[in-house]
């Protein structure tokens, strides 16, 4: 029997992309042939890890147009990132869903051609929307939920993107506002699905569950007690999906003592150089070493304090492993990596499921939630100091870490995929 070719199609974000790298590394070890379907802008990212890439056709826009669109995006949305989840529904979530629907429509023809060319035995979709070419490919597709668990609704789980507690009295108001905000994009998307022969989805939903397998990146330490438990076998919870990275050799800083704090707001969060600059001013007053991921904006910073190190890229798992505190935006991948290595999180969310993970970190005492706007320097400084020295937190995080490490998320994901595949093959 020839090795099964498994096509992984992560969305165009580093969290999903690198989560899939972790799964693909394990699939390869298990004898499968993982390949990546990716957006042209991710060229080389998967090849660097030794995987074959197949690219969707690049957009016709020139690099200058892309740069202009990007600048427009920044100037439009930067202020919105300081809003509450409810306010963001109209200002950020609604236009973002419109853009996601655009992406799915634009990708369809190219994706269909690629799938016909690759002829995969299964497709792994790590995204928030269904691409009809995948549903129509005639091979099993598997869904990876690498956003927060809130993406799969339940009465005991807070509404998706709300940052609420499950029993929040305003829950129904948020749910109604979410449906209202997404209605136009949803209607357009259902029309697109219909044109591609797919059944419509209920209001507010853009991606169905897979009838074969759904992998949820939701470690037990932060998992919700569902009113209607998800069917075992069809839904598999992972304890973390951490990829293998090169060892990060810590540079020696001019002031090189104290605990290690890592800050990364993800590729999008790095655009807020003003916020990161104000935080760096606070870091200069704390006896600790701070490693800060500033993405492509290194040139925006000058006079970096002697206990701070800026980088445009860090092999995140490797540095989180060595950290005493991880300050991040609540991206699910980042949150899970912090839990996996037993590192408390200080979550400063700016959008999407970052709000959900920030609330969950506070509720499960695996971290703290701090709003991006309106904090005073002493408040940020005190939160950092408290999280670093809290012994109770350290004991709890160590316990969570050893539990997660004992159940490799990538191994479980790969074996579930291959099991599903072999069951289908023998049927």
């Amino acid at each position: 029997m020839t090795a099964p070719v498994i096509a992984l199609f992560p969305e165009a974000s580093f969290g999903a992309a690198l989560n899939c790298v972790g799964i693909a590394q394990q699939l390869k070890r298990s004898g499968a042939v993982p390949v990546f379907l990716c957006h042209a802008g991710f060229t080389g990212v998967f090849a660097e890890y030794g995987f074959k890439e197949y690219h969707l056709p690049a957009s016709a826009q020139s690099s200058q147009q892309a740069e202009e669109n990007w600048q427009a995006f920044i100037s439009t949305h930067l202020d919105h990132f300081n809003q509450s989840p409810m306010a963001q529904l109209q200002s950020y979530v609604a236009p973002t869903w419109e853009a996601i629907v655009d992406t799915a429509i634009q990708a369809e023809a190219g994706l269909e051609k690629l799938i016909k060319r690759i002829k995969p035995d299964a497709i792994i979709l790590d995204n928030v929307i269904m691409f009809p070419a995948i549903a129509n490919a005639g091979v099993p597709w598997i869904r990876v939920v690498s956003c927060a668990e809130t993406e799969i609704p339940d009465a005991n789980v807070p509404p998706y993107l709300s940052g609420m507690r499950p029993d929040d009295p305003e829950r129904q108001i948020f749910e109604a506002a979410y449906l209202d905000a997404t209605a136009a994009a949803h209607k357009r998307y259902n029309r697109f699905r219909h044109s591609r022969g797919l059944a419509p989805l209920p209001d507010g939903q853009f991606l169905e569950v897979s009838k074969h397998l759904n992998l949820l990146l939701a470690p037990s330490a932060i998992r919700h007690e569902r009113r209607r438990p998800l069917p075992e076998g069809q839904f598999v919870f992972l304890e973390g999906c951490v990829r293998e990275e090169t060892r990060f050799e810590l540079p020696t800083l001019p002031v090189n003592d104290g605990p290690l704090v890592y800050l990364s707001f993800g590729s999008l969060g790095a655009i807020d150089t003003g916020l990161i600059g104000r935080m760096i001013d606070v870091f200069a007053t704390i006896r600790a070493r701070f490693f800060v991921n500033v993405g492509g904006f290194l040139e925006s910073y000058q006079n970096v304090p002697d206990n701070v190190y800026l980088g445009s890229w860090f092999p995140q798992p490797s540095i989180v492993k060595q950290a005493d505190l991880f300050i991040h935006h609540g991206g699910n991948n980042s949150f899970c990596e912090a839990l996996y290595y037993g590192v408390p999180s200080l979550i400063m969310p700016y959008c999407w499921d970052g709000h959900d993970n920030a609330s969950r970190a506070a509720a499960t005492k695996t971290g703290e939630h701090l709003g991006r706007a309106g904090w005073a320097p002493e408040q940020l400084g005190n939160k950092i100091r408290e999280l670093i020295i809290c012994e109770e937190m350290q004991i709890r995080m160590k316990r969570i870490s050893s539990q997660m490490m004992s159940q490799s998320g990538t191994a479980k994901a790969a074996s579930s995929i291959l099991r599903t595949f072999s069951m289908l093959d023998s049927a």
Partner: protein
Amino acid sequence: MLKTRSNTRQNHLKLARQIVDYALENGLGEGDHLPEMILSNACGVSRTPIRSALKILEINNIVIRREEEGYFLKIHPEVAVSGGMAQLEDVEDSLANRILKDRAERRIADVQSVSALVRRYEEPRSSVLNALKILSADGIVAQLPGRAWAFQPILDTPNALRDSLSFRLILEPQAISAPGFAMDSQKAGMMRQQMEEMLARHEDEISNTAFLRLDCAFHSLIAEGSGNRFIRGALLAHHRLRSTTQEDQSIPDFRLRQALEEHLDIFDSLERSQHQLAADQMVLHLRRSQIRRPQAANRGIRPLSQGTIG
């Protein structure tokens, strides 16, 4: 003359550090023998500078010399790294490194006065001036009219790395294909051995720092062989800048190995005198190193192919 002596001393100090790194990477401990020939192969230099470097390590109580037996580690290399190595550096060299590191980490501004540096480093004015002269010899700073010194572009940001790779893509294949290319086969042989040893290491055991050092040495060797003196000069100066200012980039293990294999393929072609093929392989190698990390991407936002790292 003073500058030459200072540069030679610096090279011996660098070599001494490389010997300790070699001992560390190869699991050597206190009392282990450091054969000159092996060190010479590992570091890609002749035995004469190795002896000078070992002498420095001996003066600093890191190795001991036994008559007719050679040099042996007096302390564990880890102890040397954590403590004794600091003594290796004389004030000017150490200060030059500190200034350069602080510049690369964006702690100090583009233009500096000597007085500001004297205040920051609490070192005498003469030491600061000597450190600036060391950096100036490598083209890292230039004295402006008056008392200020200006830093030249260094490889400290993704954009600078992108520019560096574009520059190299223009010149490195030309360095090979220009008439008169001649490679130092002895050095190439030693370097090939180091690459093969690196490739034989287990997964994730190749350090980015060690790779970068070998990578700079490989590309410098190619530059040295060029038959065109101006290409040779420009590339050697650029690789010197890379070796002093390019930060460890955290390249995944797969790509490190692929890049080493590409180096070996280029050596193979050069040894067979297939220069045009080697030049094409160099293009492939450098293009593969231009791994583009999307500058930004998120739900609904198409990734941009900016911010080259490679």
